[in-house]
Each structure stands twice: as C-alpha cells, then as structure tokens.
C-alpha cells in the first residue's frame, strides 16, 4: 500500500470536509473547540484552586466535571462553603461590604446581579469570555438574564423557569370531561389563560378525596413569584420611565385578584407552605395543577421518587387576554448562576471555571443528573439531548416554550427590598390581615421610599437592563 498522497486526493478530501462542515452535524467538533478555548485561556491564567460559595445540592451535579478541568489547567475547585442558595445573597452582600477577596465565586440567583454589581462585588466577564471564545447559547432571551448595563456578570447553570403542569390522568377521564362540558358548556382542554386554569382547578378541587386542586405556593417568601406572572401577562410593568411605581393599575389589580382567587382551591395550610411541603404533594398526586419550577418535572417523572410518573402533562404557562392581546409570561426566579468576585485574586480563573460548567457537553452532564434535579435545561442543545430527555421526558418541550417567555422579578438594585414589600402585603391580604384593595397602593407607597433611598437616577439608568430581559414574543412559536 502506497503512502503517497496525490494532489487529487487532497483536493477531494478538502472538498468533502468543506461539504461536511456545512451540515448540521459537527456538534461534537464545536463542543470540543468550545472546551479547548476555555482550557487554553484558563491555562494562561495560572493555577490555584478556587474557593466558592455554593449550595451542595447544586454542586453535587457540577463536581464530576471539575477533575477534567483541573487535569487540563492545573486548578479546580479547592473548597466550597455550603450555604442554601436562598441565603447566599445576604452572605455575598456581606462580602461586598467588607470587599473581601475570600471567595472567588458565588452561586446564586442571577436576579441579584444589579444589587451585587451596584455594591461593587461583581466582575464583568465579557473580556474573559472573548478570550476563551465562549458564548452563552441559551434558549430565547434567557442569556440576557446574565447581563446588566451591557456587561455579562453571570454564567448560568440552571434554567429555572415556571412550567404549567396538570394531571393528564384526571383530564382524560370521560366522566370528568362530560361533567365539565355540561357545567361550563365547553370542552375540557389544556388551559390557555389564567381563567381557564382557575375553572379547571375549581372543577377538580376534591378536598374530601385529599386533592386540594392548586399546588401553587402562597407563603410570604415565594407567593409573590406567581403574582409576577399574572401581572406581566396582563401587560403590566412595575415602573414608568421616571421610576414611579405603576402597580396600582388595572393590570396590577387583575394580578392581585387572580392571586387571591386561588385561595378557593388551595390547601388551607398554603400560607405557610414552601417547596419542602408542596413538592411532596405534587409528586404524590395530591393536587390537580400548578405552575412550578421545572425541576419538579424531573422528580415527577422519576418512578423511584414519585407516584405520578406519566400522570402529568406539561406545557406552556397559562396567559392572559387582559391587555387586549394574548400574552404568556413565565417567571425565572431564582436563576442559579456563577457570579465572580471582583476582589478575588483568582477572578479570571473563576470565570473560566464558570464557563467550563456552561459548555454544551458539561452543562448536559449537570442538567441531565436525574438524581439531583437542581439544575434545569437552558442551553439550546439541552433540548436535543437524549441525556437531558431521560430526566425531563415529556416535560422538555414545555420547558423550552416557557423559557421563550421567561420574565424576571424586579431586575433592579434593591430586588429583595422591592420584592419583600410586595410579598408582605400580598401575604397579608391572603391571610386576611389587609384588604385586597390596599395591597398595591401600600406597596407603591413603600416602593417610592425605596426608589428615593437607592436613587431615582441610578434606577432609571437600570430600567433598560430590566426591560431587556423580557421575552420578544408573547406566545412562543
């Protein structure tokens, strides 16, 4: 056999490669180069192990991807401080106040980016991303959740978004269908609006059989998350261009009404329940429907952990015609992401570590972990991945469509303060401590003080970043 390579064979080979590269196949080749770029950049940044603040429930799925990075670059994650993702904002802010270089990265809700960046804690990551040739390839507008005032401050690891889930087995029962049709004069169908959803929940509300129809949260810290969806889908936005609160509007009142209406079909203990109480009810089939964080799908569809595998149908979050046009708005909060400490000596290295976790290949490993479903799909490639499909099964298209209409909470400096004032007043109305009509005027009053305190000019300059997070479509394609 001759070892000679003819000119013709080289030309033919080149043509074949060129033709092949135009096909949509070379995903593996892209993935490899994505990682190679990060490694090359990371190597040039030197090597000391990193220290991060991250909840072990999240880190457990990320940890297996670290050794390969360490082998290639000489550094990985040396130690972590294991704190709940809900407590990290406070801890991170303490680090900001003291300008501490102690932690290299924080894993927390990216909606805290405006507050933490304003406090001077966060390192913009764009230059490192450029150096590594890395881009966040997220569904729809989701990548913008990492941006603030034109800079990227976070690398997403978890595509948290609310999806709608309802009991397919109950809806497919012919007797139920007939009864519903007789009562409402229309066929039972997947809910397209909040009103449809309420009607269905009221129909399937069977406390005598242990089914309290709604699985939506109504406790003080979490309940407000649902309110945003009602409000945004009714065409509401919480501030005008001069940073005056615009909550006490028809859209705001529609949202409060929708929020409180659900009391009829919620468990009496709902005002005190968070995820630890509600998730077992969802997975044991003691509800009819809810909008919930997409991680619940992985649990529901895991027959080892759930009684409801195959019983739920998942889909687009209901919308509203209130504004005159049909709008669907889901909510993404918290969106767990890696944020890098500006005061850290290892900030560049931490940025590459974060990118490593967000490559197509590694993020598939992280998101596809069907034991710890804390990280949910967000990357465009996740929705074509068999590994991710095995975890989310029929819920995967629903996550995709909800990500396309994902909206943020108050994406401004002072998120927690704005949000708690609203959450407190909503919760007070829900438990009867406050009249429903007072919720929004009182919240507006409190918000005006917050705006004054943080600074109207500063917040006005942030409005564009907030608005940029909203979906470009009202109904996903």
């Amino acid at each position, binding site marked *: 056999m001759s070892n000679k390579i003819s000119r013709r064979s080289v030309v033919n080979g080149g043509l074949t490669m060129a033709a092949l590269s135009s096909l949509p196949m070379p995903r593996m080749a892209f993935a490899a180069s994505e990682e190679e770029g990060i490694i090359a950049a990371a190597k040039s940044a030197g090597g000391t192990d990193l220290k991060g603040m991250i909840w072990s429930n999240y880190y457990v799925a990320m940890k297996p991807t670290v050794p390969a990075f360490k082998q290639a670059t000489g550094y990985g994650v040396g130690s972590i401080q294991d704190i709940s993702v809900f407590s990290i904002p406070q801890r991170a802010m303490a680090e900001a106040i003291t300008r501490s270089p102690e932690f290299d990265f924080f894993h927390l809700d990216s909606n805290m980016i405006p507050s933490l960046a304003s406090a001077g804690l966060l390192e913009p990551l764009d230059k490192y991303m450029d150096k590594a040739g890395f881009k966040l390839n997220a569904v729809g507008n989701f990548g913008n959740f990492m941006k603030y005032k034109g800079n990227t401050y976070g690398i997403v690891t978890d595509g948290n978004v609310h999806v709608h889930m309802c009991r397919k087995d109950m809806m497919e029962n012919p007797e139920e269908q007939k009864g519903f049709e007789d009562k409402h004069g229309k066929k039972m169908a997947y809910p397209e609006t909040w009103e449809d959803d309420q009607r269905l929940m009221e129909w399937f509300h069977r406390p005598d059989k242990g089914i309290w129809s709604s699985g939506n949260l109504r406790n*003080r*810290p979490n309940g407000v998350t649902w309110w945003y969806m009602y409000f945004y889908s009714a065409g509401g936005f919480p501030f005008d261009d001069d940073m005056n609160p615009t909550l006490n509007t028809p859209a705001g009142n529609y949202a409060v009404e929708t929020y409180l209406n659900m009391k009829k079909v919620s468990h009496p203990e709902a005002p005190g329940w968070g995820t630890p109480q509600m998730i077992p009810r969802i997975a044991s089939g003691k509800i009819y429907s809810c909008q919930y964080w997409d991680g619940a799908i992985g649990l529901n569809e895991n027959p080892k952990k759930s009684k409801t595998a195959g019983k739920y149908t998942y889909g687009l979050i209901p919308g509203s015609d209130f504004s005159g046009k049909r709008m669907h708005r889901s909510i993404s909060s918290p969106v767990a992401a890696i944020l890098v400490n500006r005061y850290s000596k290892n900030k560049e290295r931490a940025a590459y570590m974060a990118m490593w976790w967000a490559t197509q290949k590694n993020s598939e490993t992280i998101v596809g972990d069907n034991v710890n479903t804390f990280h949910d799909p967000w990357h465009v490639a996740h929705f074509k991945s068999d590994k991710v499909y095995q975890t989310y099964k029929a819920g995967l298209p629903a996550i995709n469509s909800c990500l396309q209409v994902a909206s943020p909470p108050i994406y401004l400096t002072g998120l*927690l303060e704005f949000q708690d004032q609203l959450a407190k007043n909503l919760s*007070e109305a829900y438990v009867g401590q406050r009249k429903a009509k007072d919720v929004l005027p009182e919240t507006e009053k409190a918000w005006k003080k917050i705006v004054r305190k943080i*600074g109207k000019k500063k917040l006005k300059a942030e409005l564009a970043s907030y608005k940029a997070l909203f979906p470009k479509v009202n109904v996903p394609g």
Partner: protein
Amino acid sequence: MPPFPGSALSLLQNMNSSPTSNTNGSTKSRPRQLVQARAVQRFKWSVLSVLIVVLVAVLFPVLMLQLYFSFHGYSVYGGSWWDAEFVGLELFEEVVTDPRLGWAIIRSLLFATGSTIGCFVIGFGLALLMYRPFRGQAFYYILFILPMLTVPIVIAYTGEMLLYQKGPVNDLLSSIFGRQVNILWLANADTALLTVMVLEVWNWVPFSFIIMMAGLAALPDEPIEAAKILGASKWRVFVEIQLPLLRPVIVLALILRFLEAIAEFPKAWSLFQGGPGSATETIPTYLYIVTWQYFEISKGAAMSYVILLIMVAIVLLAIQILRREKIGLDQIYDSRKETTA
C-alpha cells in the same frame, strides 16, 4: 384565709435554731476569714478582668462602629462606608416613626410574656414534682432538660412536623376532645405567633425547671417542718412558706427567660420568615429583614440602638426588682441571725 402563724417571715423570725460558729466570736477565725475574703476578691477580679478585656477589645469597637453607622447614611450601593454622609438623628427619627417596628415590638412583648409564663408554670410544676429525691430521679431529670440541649432550629423543624393540620398534635387533641381538631398552627395569621410560643416553651421549660429546682432545694427545711408540726396543709405550706421564700428565685427565672425570649429568632425565622402576612414579624425578625434583606445597614444599626435602649430599660427595671427581692430576703435572714444570736 386566716393568716398562718408560721408564715415565712414570722417563722424565720421566731425560730430558735442552733447557733453557728460565726456567732462564737472566735478571734482565731478572723485572720482566716480575712484570707478567705481576699481570695474571693482575687477570684472575682481574675474573672472580671477577662470579661472587661473582652468587652473593651471586642464589644466596644462593634458598638462604636454601629454607632457610626447609626449617624451616617451608608448605602451598600453608594461607595465606602467610611465616606458615608453624616445624617445626625435622621435615622433614629425614621426608626422611631416606623410603624412596622412598633408592631414588631408589640409582637415581641406578647411573645416574650406568653412564652415566659408558659416556661415558668410548666418548669415550676416539674420542679415541684422532682425536687424531693425519688427512685429514677436522675433519669427524669435528664429527660426534662433534653429540649434545652436541642438546637432551636431542630426544635422548629420537629415542631413543624408535629404541627401540620393532619399532624400528630391535632390527632392527639382530636382524641382528647372526641371531635376533629384542625388547628392551622403553621398557616393561620392568628395562631402563628402562638405556635412559635409553644415551641419556645418546649425548648426552654428546662431553663425554668433547673432554676426552680435549685431554688426549691435551697429552701431551709426548718420553717416547713415547723409549719407541718403546727398542722398546716401542704397547700398552705406551699402558698405561705415556700412561695414567699422562692420569690427572688421566681423573679430571677422570669426576668432571665423574658430577656432571652425577646431575642428569639431561629424558630420564628425558619418556620415563618415573618409570615403568614406579618404575623411573626418580631423585633429580631424585622431587624434581620431591614439589615440583611433590605441591606439598610445604617437603619439596622440605628434600630439596634433603639432596641438596645429599650432592653437596657427593661434590664434596669429587672435589676431594681431583683434588688428589692434580695433586700427582702436579706431582711428575713438577718432577722433570723439576730434571733439566733
């Protein structure tokens, strides 16, 4: 009820007990007493000096820093704290006119009063059952003090599991009352504070129990024995001898527990985070929200000072009450010494 001739004061005043060595006036024992007194003094100062050093080195700078924040409008979003603008008493004015703080103080006082009374009544009851030696006493003693050794957060989560609407506590109450009891311990704004109170009582009954056990064990036997010889019933011995003699201990137990209860945070926060509505927004909860959710560090510092002043006023009142009780007790014992002399 006619006055019992052997009530605490009169009995102690009129009793003839055996003379003590001190009353002998021995000249030899005086230098020894002097040495003892000096040793006690040295011990006092060795302990106190450490505390003073800790206070000056650790607490004082913190208090000063907090005072600085209270007078400066520092914003976490507005540069360095040492460049913050001086705002005088503005923050204090904001704090004292904040209706949420007002409600938080009311809730905290309610909570502290309720849980202190609960702890005391149960703790004292248990102490009365336990203070005389009996077989297996040590076992019960350990059993009763266990909740105090449990981390408050564990108490909160254990309590949560017991207090669900379909939980064991409602089940137990249902079987006791013979009808379905469905108290919403964890979800009703009217009962939420009561729930934290119940858990606080569970957690801290042993504290009152231990103090009252010590108090009961330290009571002199003579007046009680004398009263019994004179035909007093157990109830009258308790009401007219034991209770008056225990007064300083009771006051101490109540005051210490009250001060501790005012500062309760872990259970209220882990279970309710201020909710449902604002039902469990007590002083520590609201202080945490302002400082670490709203990141209003300066307002939080000013609020801490206002609360500190309120607490100092409560402590001074408590010291006054304790001092009065001590004087009362000293009078009883002094008159007893005089009588025996």
